[in-house]
């Protein structure tokens, strides 16, 4: 485009660059960078480009959406909400006092397998309306204490669950203190269904976040008992329920891995779950659910990605179509000089 530079003096000087004798050493060195003349590609939004971009997105997104949706649909999930059912009928109007009493909280649930579930089947517990991401809660832990036995009394960040009876708590803090303590045992056809509780936490957590020489100490000894107690003879790196629980969830509805069932479940098989309904979600109207789920390449059952992909792909397709339509109906020459208003009324505005 520079070929048509008006015969301005500046242009003239520029061309004289090589001809003029170099007299002054102060003169800046010429380079394309200093002259802001690096070769540049200057794309513009032509209809063809934009329409094909939208078309491309829709062509890519719709199949991915379909695949994701299928992946999600392939996951078999059994969800059983039990926190109300597991309170005896007569105590249901005061569930909080029930959960805080010493009454027998054992409860039996029957789950029917709807479809073939291939191993491994993950057992989750799901809590609703539980704010593990509350600021007071999420900060109340001591990573150094969990990792290293020597800093067992580093409880400064654990308030208000830092000390009990004048002694530091290991593991300290609200998170550990409120450890989930419902338990599930599964049986199938009157046979115990083994639930593997090893390897449910992240390996990196076991290896480097929770020390294998850190033993629980002075835990759940205070006046207020929060959740589960820990076996003081087992090092923290082996307390996988704690490790899983300590990976705080970012959302108030979350699932945490309880264990894995390492065998296939056939359709219409009935699993009997005997559970200890210990954990208090009643005071804040939280739900508790037991979830058995298989998994796909995309994770658990979650239609969101598939639907979102289909929506975005569809919208892009629609946009591409309508842009094409508008382009065909009302073509508009790009860079039409008549749009420059100073050309319409010269010398004017």
């Amino acid at each position, binding site marked *: *485009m520079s070929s*048509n530079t008006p015969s*301005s*003096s500046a242009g003239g000087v520029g061309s004289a*660059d090589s001809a003029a004798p170099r007299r*002054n050493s*102060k*003169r*800046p060195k010429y380079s394309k960078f*200093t*002259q*802001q003349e*690096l*070769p*540049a*590609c200057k794309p*513009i939004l032509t*209809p063809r480009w*934009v329409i094909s*971009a939208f078309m491309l*997105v829709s062509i890519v997104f719709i199949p991915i959406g379909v695949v994701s949706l299928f992946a999600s649909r392939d996951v078999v999930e059994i969800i059983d909400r039990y926190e109300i059912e597991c309170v005896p009928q007569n105590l249901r109007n005061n569930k909080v006092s029930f959960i805080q009493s010493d009454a027998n909280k054992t409860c039996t649930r029957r789950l029917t397998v709807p479809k073939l579930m291939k191993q491994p089947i993950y057992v*989750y517990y799901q809590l609703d309306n539980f*704010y*593990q*991401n*509350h*600021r*007071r*809660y999420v900060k109340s832990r001591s990573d150094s204490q969990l990792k290293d036995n020597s800093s067992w009394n580093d409880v400064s960040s654990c308030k208000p669950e830092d000390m009990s009876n004048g002694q530091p708590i290991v593991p300290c803090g*609200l998170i550990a203190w*409120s450890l989930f303590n419902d338990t599930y045992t599964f049986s199938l056809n009157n046979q115990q269904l083994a639930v593997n509780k090893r390897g449910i936490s*992240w390996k990196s957590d076991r290896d480097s*976040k929770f020390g294998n020489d850190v033993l629980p100490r002075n835990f759940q000894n205070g006046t207020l008992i929060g959740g589960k107690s820990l076996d003081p003879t087992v090092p923290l790196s082996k307390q996988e329920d704690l490790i899983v629980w300590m990976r705080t*969830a*970012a*959302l108030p509805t*979350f*699932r*945490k891995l309880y264990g894995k069932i390492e065998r296939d479940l056939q359709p219409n098989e009935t699993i009997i779950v005997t559970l200890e309904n210990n954990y208090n979600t009643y005071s804040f109207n939280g739900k508790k659910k037991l979830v058995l789920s298989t998994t796909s390449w995309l*994770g*658990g059952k*979650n239609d*969101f*990605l598939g639907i979102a*992909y289909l929506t*975005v792909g569809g*919208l*892009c397709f629609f*946009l591409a179509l309508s*842009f094409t339509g508008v382009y065909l109906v009302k073509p*508009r020459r*790009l*860079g*039409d*000089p008549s749009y*420059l*208003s*100073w050309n319409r009324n*010269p*010398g004017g505005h």
Partner: protein
Amino acid sequence: MKRYVYINDDESSHELYCDNRISNRKYTVLNFLPKNLWEQFSRFMNQYFLLIACLQLWSLITPVNPASTWGPLIFIFAVSASKEAWDDYNRYLSDKKANEKLVWVVRQGIRKHIQAQDIHVGNIVWLRENDEVPCDLVLIGTSDPQGLCYVETSALDGETDLKTRLIPTACMGIDFELLHKIKGVIECPNPDKDIRRFDANLRLFPPFIDNDVCPLTIKNTILQSCYLRNTEWACGVAIYTGNETKLGMSRGIPEPKLTAMDAMIDKLTGAIFVFQIVVVMVLGIAGNVWKDTEARKQWYVLYPLEGPWYELLVIPLRFELLCSIMIPISIKVSLDLVKSLYAKFIDWDSEMIDYETGIPSHATNTAISEDLGQVEYIMTDKTGTLTENRMIFRRCCISGVFYGNESGDALKDTRLLSAVAGCSTDVVQFLTVMAICNTVIPIKSKTGAILYKAQSQDEDALVNAAAQLHMVYVNKNANTLEIRFNSSVIKYEVLETLEFTSDRKRMSVVVKDCQNGKIVLLSKGADEAILPYAYDGQQTRTFIEAVEQYAQLGLRTLCLAWRELTEDEYQEWSLMFKEASSTLIDREWRIAEVCTRLEHDFEVLGVTAIEDRLQDGVPETIETLRKAGINFWMLTGDKQNTAIQIALSCNFISPEPKGQLLLIDGKTEDEVCRSLERVLLTMRITSSEPKDVAFAVDGWALEIALKHYRKAFTELAILSRTAICCRVTPSQKAQLVELLKSCDYRTLAIGDGGNDVRMIQQADIGVGISGREGLQAARAADYSIGKFRFLKRLILVHGRYSYNRTAFLSQYSFYKSLVICFIQIFFSFISGVSGTSLFNSVSLMAYNVFYTSVPVLASVLDKDLSEGTVMQHPQILFYCQAGRLLNPSTFAGWFGRSLFHAIVVFVITIHAYAYEKSEMEELSMVALSGCIWLQAFVVALETNSFTIVQHLAIWGNLVAFYVINWIFSAIPASGMYTIMFRLCRQPSYWITMFLIVAAGMGPVLALKYFRYTYRPSKINTLQQAERMGGPILTLGNIEPQQRSIEKEVSPLSISQPKSRSPTPVYEPLLSDSPNSSRRSLGSRSSSSYSRNCKDN
């Protein structure tokens, strides 16, 4: 109010006056830290960041590690502080060098070598040739028998020629040895910064001379930082020392200039701050309510029943800290960085190098490049700025005979040459005045040729022309000067020099012819300062005509005159003059008054015409910039006719019938008022294009107008796009700039001489031309360029790009901070409004200072339109002038975009990573990477031209994001151990990223495409035209036609003017002109033109 300096008596001055230690330092070692911190914290932004950083130290409320604010804050402060410290250290070194320089000073009657800092007031300082003057001195002796010495004052006023300085008459002829013992008192005013004035008296004590008061002027002083030249030695009494010298007093740090853009950014920052406070209050209240209703039920949170007294404040303060990133801490650093790069681009620009002198353009002020793109008014000096200031003697009129009219060069006019050869009396007198009525110093070079050192270019031209006409000014020895005419040497004794002042507009010398003892007054000056004082019988008509004719050709005219004085008249007057020159109060005025008593009854000898050629490319530059919507005002000290002619020849105003030039004149208030009102009326009703109507005003009328009719004049200034102000003083130039600034216009002042310095400093942008009048203007200016024509490139290319780039950069900085901040706010709604930060400290810090800053810095290379297109369509500058790219509405667009993107990232993340995947650290990294991906595409979409640097910055930054996070993920203690590895292995992570990009950018792209194609701005249209090739070639064809018309009538041709009567160009358009009724019909719209154009 007065200072008494006792010569050679340094004891008494010790307590009274400071020693000669110069100190330009701002800090000392001890006060550096507190003073520098205090200065930095006087800015609102820094105070804000400090407050945030302090709040973060309170661990109860801080959502993140305090290091995430302290780190960048300390970094920013350290950078500014070390820059200051480095500058100050350099100043200290240069001070030290100057202070410890050895000088010869008389101590107890003996000359000693001491350090310059030990000089005291009253000391006698000896200088040798080429020595720098260590403090302000009053000369008392030189090696020259006549008591002369030469100094170079370029460090003081930028003038490179040598100036003569002479010892006071009282000290004349004192023996070399006695100078060591001289005693006396100098009565001088307290130190001031006026380097052109020194009104003092000297009284020497016996036995040196009779107890007589001897007046001292600036001619008797040599000031600090000058150099002694061409003189073997000189000595003087120190009168002002250290920081009290005239140079020291005039040294000062100019007010930092704030660009319109900075003001707008500050305003937007303020708005964001208010928004932030509102958000904090709302969330704070919501948080407290939620805490009291819900969180008490959440037993696992274990809220105590009774909190401390400040409990209510905790949650709002937490949110304040969470939202503090809304105001990006990086914006100042990024802006400083890119602005210094803009300045470097100006320095580097090879198309703005003056190839005659090899001087590149230079941006002294690196902070105001964007303002260049927003200029609305350019105030330009004429001489040396529009013209070359290379004076060439072209024509003359000697006693009614015009020389040089045919050939355009009087020096080649055979009639004149033969008149010279024939020793015609008139011509010889004329040449004598040309040769010696001046302050030129002839210097014989080694080769024998005579070089003239002149302070004014006109004098230089005249003396050189006289020399070519065989009247050679050969030598000047104190009071005698020699001229050689046709090989006969004539000697004159200079009795008095009545110097040129801008008020008197003439200068004279009184000389005594050494041959016949006749005393003659020789004068030269402006026509109005000479012709009215001609003796009664003389016909001055031809001279008036000559002046008019020359002025129409754009030539500078000077009238030459002389008068023979009788001995008595001279003696009588000489006494008065002496008395006037020794007064301390109003000396200048008194002298002027005395001078007029001598300067009358002239015999006018003739008129000289000197050509001052236009610089290359001036008309084109002015035309282009006017098309860009910039209004031009010419402020010149020259006379009206010359100014108008120059204005015509450089496209400043259009000739009739297109152009109208209205005159405001008058000597009294009433006349000026009437004239002003008439012009205003015409201006309001005129229907011709506003740019073709100009007004011209002279200094006298301007003073009245500014004093009494400021309002009317302001209105006129707004209405008129062109103005010519002639005969204005430097302070009036500054006043006019001030006037336009007060109307909220962006002004640019361009000039080359010392008289433009005030205007340059006053204007929003000062541009200095490093020209022949020295470097004074260029030093005071924000930008210095070699030629006027570079102004076009400076404004249209550098100013425009800088504006565009800063507009993008600043808004983008807010955008990216807002995105992350909105996500934090949304997250607070699902975390119990408790003020949890979704992102960890490292990510937050790196997000602001690294991930999002690097790609945007590459936008300094972005060009929306090529330079050629901008030059061809300068009208596009209007977008910058009107602030179209950075204003509340564009900012609202970016604000909306950040809200939209935050929603997209947040909603997709929490749904894609729900249930078993809702792990905090993972989710936070997903959201952060979503933001980074969007940023990359936003920058890419807003970039107009991709160079390799931009590609590297945008996509390299994306890669760097992953690399950095992988590194962090490999460190067990980092808080995000293994997170990034885990995420990158999940297909769902990548699928989520693509979804975020598509959902976030799709609507933005669609909207942009729609605007671009169906509601294109002019920039878009030109972009399309430029990049598709094609119709742009034909775009510029309407304007050049106008040009060619103007060119034809451009009257700087050397041909004889066709008529003697003034061309109708500057005939004032009177309200009763036949055209006016027609004009008044369709006129209303244009009356508020200059404001309208901003709104359309």
